[in-house]
């Protein structure tokens, strides 16, 4: 065996060895569960009944399920409202974090805190803020001389409350991603623009925004998928109420899993998966389209 040949086979071993854990992880924890869920959605898999092939029965059931319609409507509305808000305010934060100032380190740390707090804790914090009897929100309201408001008591109130809590929590995430993008834009571009007399607004729309586009697409993608499967915040803040109006798709699916209906629970998971897949395609498409134009 020549030395070269030995090197190749040893290289191959090395590469295979390092790839193996990653690939095994993907297969065991992502690929198998996804297909498993897809399969389970096609059977009537209820712990207290005989397991049998159901074909598309579970999917047909979706169309007659008012709880599903309500959840789907809520989830879509939540994405449409929260993701744009988070992106715009995340952009603001990113610009703030990018400014060179003696307080840069402190500002960055403060902005990042909400993102570092687990969603369950965030839920608890906001639950206390919105509490009718002793919440911070009603304290401020009563200071201003109004009657206390039951923030989570109406469908629209609970919706806005969830969006605000989610906004607070995820703005920093968007900001970090955008900040990374901002840092990669060469300073010389701005210097030239300044020499040409471009205002801050002009510089933002002509240099920052176009160059950030790919990064914005990534942020949008992450946020859209995250918003689609929102669970923990709602579970703690409203448990889906009032009257089921804030039950997200994942919360609905969860309820079916603990009740023992794995088939229908999986069907709901597949719906979430398909939505995420389609939304991702749309977002990625939008990103490419804008790149071609510019």
């Amino acid at each position, binding site marked *: 065996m020549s030395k070269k040949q030995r090197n190749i086979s040893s290289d191959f071993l090395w590469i295979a060895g390092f790839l193996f854990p990653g690939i095994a992880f993907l297969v065991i924890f992502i690929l198998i569960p996804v297909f498993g869920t897809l399969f389970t959605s096609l059977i009537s898999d209820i*712990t*207290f009944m005989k397991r049998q092939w159901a074909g598309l029965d579970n999917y047909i059931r979706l169309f007659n399920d008012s709880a599903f319609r309500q959840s789907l409507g809520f989830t879509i509305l939540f994405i449409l409202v929260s993701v744009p808000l988070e992106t715009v305010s995340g952009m603001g934060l990113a610009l703030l974090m990018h400014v060179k100032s003696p307080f840069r380190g402190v500002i960055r740390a403060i902005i990042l805190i909400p993102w570092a707090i687990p969603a369950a804790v965030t839920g608890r914090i906001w639950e206390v803020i919105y509490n009718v*009897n002793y919440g911070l929100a009603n304290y401020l309201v009563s200071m201003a001389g109004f009657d206390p408001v039951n923030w989570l008591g109406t469908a629209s109130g609970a919706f806005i409350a969830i969006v605000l809590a989610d906004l607070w929590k995820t703005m920093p995430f968007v900001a970090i991603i955008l900040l990374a993008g901002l840092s990669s834009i060469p300073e010389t571009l701005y210097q030239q623009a300044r020499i040409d007399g471009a205002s801050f607004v002009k510089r933002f729309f002509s240099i920052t925004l176009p160059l950030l586009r790919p990064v914005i697409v990534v942020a949008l993608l992450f946020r859209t998928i995250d918003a689609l499967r929102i669970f923990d915040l709602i579970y703690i803040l409203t448990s889906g109420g*009032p009257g089921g109006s804030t039950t997200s798709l994942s919360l609905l699916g969860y*309820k079916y899993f603990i009740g023992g209906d794995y088939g229908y629970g999986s069907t709901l998971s597949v719906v979430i998966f398909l939505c995420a897949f389609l939304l991702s395609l749309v977002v990625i498409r939008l990103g490419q389209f804008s790149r071609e134009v510019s």
Partner: protein
Amino acid sequence: MFLLSKRGLLLLLPVLMLIISCGGDLNDNTVVLAVGGAPSEIDFWEKTASECEEKTGIKLQLIRQPTDTDQRRQNLVTSLRARKSTPDIFLMDVAWIAQFAASEWLEPLEPYMKKHNLPVESFFEPVVRQADTYNDKLIALPVYVDGGLLYYRKDLLQKYGYSGPPATWDELVSCALKITEEERKKNRNFTGFVWQGAQYEGLVCNFLEFASSNNGGIVLSESQPVFDTEQNRKAVKFMRDLIHTHKLSPSNTYTNMKEEEVRLVFQNGNALFERNWPYAWKIHQASDSPVKNKTGVSLLPHFEGGKPAAALGGWHIGLSRFSKNKENAFTCIDYILSSEVQTEFVTSLGWNSGRVDIYDNVEVQKTIPHAEILKNVFRHAVTRPLVPHYSYMSSVLQRYLNAVMAGRMELDKAFTECESELGKIVSQYSNQ
């Protein structure tokens, strides 16, 4: 040679970790018990486990579950569905027993009870019959039982000239209206009656009590649920009126009033009446409690022509069909259900035993002066429908009841739609 090099070891590491983490089930005589709840509860179980080992020689190992009921359930469902041999024994909420039994996860207990000389008569008959028996088989035993109670402010009732707690809902309303009007002048936050109205299982329990005290409830006639009745409509209308018309129950009743929120309002001296489970008593009587020695306990009121009703709650112990250690596991169950441990339950945790004889114990009567009332409560308990698909019925009920409480849906619409949704669920999950 390659694998023995430094870099080779680096590669081996994850593989080793994988092997270690896939360790098998315990195969010695250890019995594994899944329990959850508040820290004081877990502490108690730990003490019980070590005493169990001393007395029976069997090692009782605990799996600590979360406090949240849904998460405890999910935890168990995952293990049982995977046919894991542990936990051998576990605590179940009454609302899950039917699902667990129908899934054939629970071992029938009667043969073991005979062998261990544990007569079924030791426990409250209605509890065992209604909650622990599925398809004529005894598949669980009560560890602690719960029933809804009315807590009231003795001092305030006395101050305004009432001789005792109200017996009917009308009396409760007129009494609370009078007292809250006066008390609100001193305390803006004072409210008449707090109960569990958030969208969760507790709302269904509260509904069952209001409805059953009006001769209503959920009837399963030929497996089709009957929900839309005059009695139930009146009860639900009354619940809504408590919040919106009489304004005796706070507006967050339907958003965040669960057990602890309700207890806190009463505990801080901000409510005249409270509907809660028996656990609240011990906390109301704690040395730093503002309502210490000001709290009275009674059966819940009823409508004219009805009788008081208490929703049956509580935790029951079951033996896994997949346990490889059933004999020892039942010995542990037998120990947990023994008079001495059950007395400890009452005196140190304030829980209520499912054993009848405990309530005649002097120690117990010292801890709970209302032991007689409790005995009465458990003899008149109403259960939630014992069907495996109960949790789906419950989530429909929760959704519609909560929508009515929130004023988001008219009574008529809610009842018509809810009944048809319940029917759909029953036909979906009844055996073909």
